């Protein structure tokens, strides 16, 4: 079983079409990984599916970096 970090990284690579090495923990989806606002919503949708959870809109808006995504998943799984 891969770690949460690895699974999150894989989803980001798939959703945003970026290289795995660019998915650093401090990377911002919009500023560093070239995501637009729709991409970030889709990313959250993919995370919800992978981790079988529902992320409320107000929480989803705060997930703007790789680390924030990992932290959220860890806190809610």
């Amino acid at each position: 079983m891969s770690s949460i970090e690895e699974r999150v990284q894989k989803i980001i690579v798939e959703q945003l079409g970026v290289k795995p090495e660019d998915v650093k923990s401090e990377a911002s989806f919009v500023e560093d990984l070239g995501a637009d606002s729709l991409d970030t919503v889709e990313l959250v949708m993919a995370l919800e599916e992978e981790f079988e959870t529902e992320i409320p809109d107000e929480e989803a808006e705060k997930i703007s970096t790789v680390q924030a995504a990992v932290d959220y998943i860890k806190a809610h799984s």
Partner: protein
Amino acid sequence: MTDKKVALVTGASRGIGRAIAEALVEAGFFVIGTATSDNGAQAIGQALGDNGAGRVLNVADSDSVTETIKAINEEFGAPLVLVNNAGITRDNIMLRMKEDEWADVINTNLNSLYRVSKACLKGMTKARWGRIINISSVVGTMGNAGQANYAAAKGGVEGFTRALARELGSRNITVNAVAPGFIQTDMTDALPDAQRETLLKEIPLGRLGQPQEIASAVSWLASDGGGYVTGTTLHVNGGMFTG
């Protein structure tokens, strides 16, 4: 679950909505038609047979929308075609119009688009394919005395259509409006004869439209052939408004 693409048509028990549901079945979709009453939903289910289902939905109520769309997703799969058709009229001259006549029309005819479209967007985004078709009215562009509420809602529908088309184009989701003129339905059967005569003089084709003539426009926008059209309002009105 069904192998066919799922289409959702709100307000499908009568008139234009019913014709749209039938046309989409004809075009090969699995069609969920909604009505506000149990009887209406059952009748839709019977009419559509194996090619669809009827469900109760009140588009004016957020909880009803959330629950019903969720149930449809689980039972049949995510709707990839959404026809926002449900609507009401509460005609009155402005000087007499009650605030609830205004608010009910805006809520059912315009705020509903926010609710139902939003609830269906995740599925379409995921599929990278979607069609949202909003039923407007020629009145949204021309105006009509006694229908300030209805005209305001329908004008709003067309603005919503243009904005959402820009927002979702990158996900291969098209958003269009179809604006019927005067179509022969229960809504227009209620018009007094004198008013009908006056009305017909304004229509170059000299007759009211048939619900099927709106349905075929919707069906085309939902088809692959309509795939390069987005953000537009298609007027189907016998020439009474020629923009």
